[in-house]
């Protein structure tokens, strides 16, 4: 139920701000003997879209809650929009928790205005903005409806609008795509991009790599309460060498000595990682030996491949399972 990004959802661009919107150093959070966050260092550049990737139970939600000040870390320190006490910046932050929650008897526009009021937005302004947002998103008929009468998707939209109605400088979204259909996921992506264009910092967690790949300027891969990788998606992919796929007319010849050691034969083609010296020595051997090149492709690895390489196959498999379970649910 998320519409195309409307004018009411994209206020004026923000003034330049500090280099990092969110910082955490040596963060540790334990529940009993379980270390949910185990010594994490994180820095989210201001104005960027930053993704925290990891399977369920990796510590993503606890990390976000710790950064936002909902829970205090056992060790380490954090800073939110320059403030060591995150609650002091609450009026500049919008937060959509993983477990969605609204008062069932509240009307849709009142729920949005209430969430804005919690963050310091005057109720009157909040109501006006809420009505405009709902109307522009094709939910005009639901403005006065209690939340309990809305569909799950509509209620999620209401909550998302409640997260941004006060025009925050930092938006934190915990698994924002969870429970949305493909169309609404796409619309949410557009909304995130629109907010980022006006200088808002977006920090979100997800266990769906595709969203992070499409949206994020930087990512952190979290598993077992630790950050396994931090950087741009490009840098994550660069951890893997490009993959070469070669198909020839002849299967044997002197040219085969030029194939790298890790080459695997699969479905009549050769697969191997691009060697450090490049593809040229092999090409020369193929031409000299007249092997007959049918096809040759050099593919840059996807973020999923990088994730598997960084976090491990087991973690990647768990993420895949999480996604299947969510879709089934």
């Amino acid at each position: 139920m998320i519409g195309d990004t409307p004018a009411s959802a994209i206020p004026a661009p923000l003034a330049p701000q500090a280099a990092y919107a969110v910082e955490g150093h040596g963060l540790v959070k334990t529940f009993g003997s379980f270390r949910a966050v185990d010594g994490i260092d994180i820095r989210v550049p201001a104005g960027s879209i930053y993704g925290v990737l990891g399977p369920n139970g990796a510590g993503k939600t606890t990390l976000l809650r710790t950064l936002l000040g909902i829970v205090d870390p056992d060790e380490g320190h954090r800073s939110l929009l320059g403030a060591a006490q995150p609650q002091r910046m609450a009026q500049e932050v919008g937060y959509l928790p993983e477990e969605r929650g609204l008062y069932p008897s509240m009307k849709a526009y009142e729920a949005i205005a209430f969430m804005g009021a919690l963050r310091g937005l005057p109720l009157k302004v909040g109501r006006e903005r809420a009505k405009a947002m709902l109307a522009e998103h094709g939910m005009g008929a639901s403005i006065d409806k209690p939340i309990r009468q809305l569909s799950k998707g509509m209620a999620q939209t209401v909550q998302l609008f409640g997260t941004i109605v006060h025009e925050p400088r930092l938006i934190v979204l915990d698994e924002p795509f969870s429970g949305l259909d493909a169309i609404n996921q796409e619309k949410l992506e557009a909304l995130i991009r629109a907010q980022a264009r006006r200088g808002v910092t977006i920090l979100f967690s997800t266990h769906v790599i595709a969203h992070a790949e499409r949206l994020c300027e930087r990512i952190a891969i979290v598993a077992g309460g630790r950050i396994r990788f931090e950087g741009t998606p490009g840098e994550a992919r660069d951890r893997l060498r490009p993959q070469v796929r070669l198909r020839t007319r002849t299967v044997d010849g002197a040219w085969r000595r030029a194939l790298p050691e890790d080459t695997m034969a699969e479905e009549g083609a050769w697969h191997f990682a691009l060697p450090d010296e490049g593809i040229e020595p092999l090409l020369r051997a193929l031409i000299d030996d007249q092997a007959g090149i049918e096809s040759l492709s050099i593919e840059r690895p996807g973020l999923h491949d990088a994730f598997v390489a960084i976090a491990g196959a087991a973690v990647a498999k768990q993420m895949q399972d999480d996604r299947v379970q969510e879709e089934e649910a």
Partner: protein
Amino acid sequence: MKQLWRAAFVIARRDFTAVVLSRTFILFLLGPLLPILIGFAFGGLGEKISNTDLRPVVGVAMSAQDSAALERAHDRLTERMGEQALPRLRRVSTSISPRVQLARADSEVVAILSGSVARPVLTGKAEDLDKLQGDLSLMSSAARAERTLQLVKIERQEVATSLGAQAQARLVIGRIAQVVMFFLTILLAGMILSNLVEEKTNKIIEILAAAIPIDAIFLGKLMAMLAMSFVGIAFWGGTAFGIFLALGGGGSGLPAPAVGWPIFLILAVLYFAMAYTLLGSLFLGIGAQAATVREVQTLNMPITMGQMLIFFFASYAVDHMGSPAEVAACIFPFSSPFAMIARAAQDATLWPHLVALVWQAAFVALIIRVGVLLFRRHVMQSGGRWWKTLFRPATG
């Protein structure tokens, strides 16, 4: 601090409108009127019953002369002592033994006086004889000395006020104020127990905790419930006062409490607010630890028992002004509002009330803070040892 109050007001406003604009609030308002109406109905019935003559009837089995003398003595004494003071007399047969008469199914007398006025014999059950023999001895004596008995005339000297009576009246005012405050508190504060369950079951607590200090959530909820209580009290009080006036009641005969009615009423409102917020903050803190409505229901009974104990303590204190028990009841925060309103009825000094109100308010703040820290520790699973952060400024 300003942000804390602003956030508390947002929560209070939401909770207040959610409760007051719900259909069940009408039931909430009308519910307590039922006992008031029943009270008035039964009050009327009680009055009717009290008007019915329930004095015991004693049979007189004496000679006609003695019976007549006894009846005359009864009338003379009743004139002085009042209608209800003496048992009624009814002549019964002298030919049948009193024991036989009393054993009859149709016997309408509780005892029978036989013999003569000089040597009366009273027959009846032991407990009835205990009650009646003094009155009948008096009547027999009066009948015997009928001609010579001269009742001494008492000279009346009326005064406008009597300090003893005034003290008694003020004690009664103090007691009534305590009882009314206690019942209002027990009726209304218990609702706070389940106040945070909605936020927890609907997962809203996460949004609230991220946006505002938890102290503001607690404070806002208390403010909302207190405001709702005042709406209820205004409605019930107004209705009761309306019925009182409609039945022709007037306030002119009411004795005044020591501090005077206007200050007493202001103090009553303030002490109710304090009693409510003291217990409410405690309930909110305890209820916030509960995960489900079932757990809250289980907590209800022991908490009500605790309230009863506090009330008994305060009501004991009202009879012992200035005693160590009364001072302790005034100091102990939970009994303090009840003890202090009784003190306002009996003692005109005002400064102790200011001290008590500040003391009680400080305790409200302390209980809220402890409740918040325990909530953060056990429900939000955040923070270390709660007492270390007890006096830090309120944050998330």
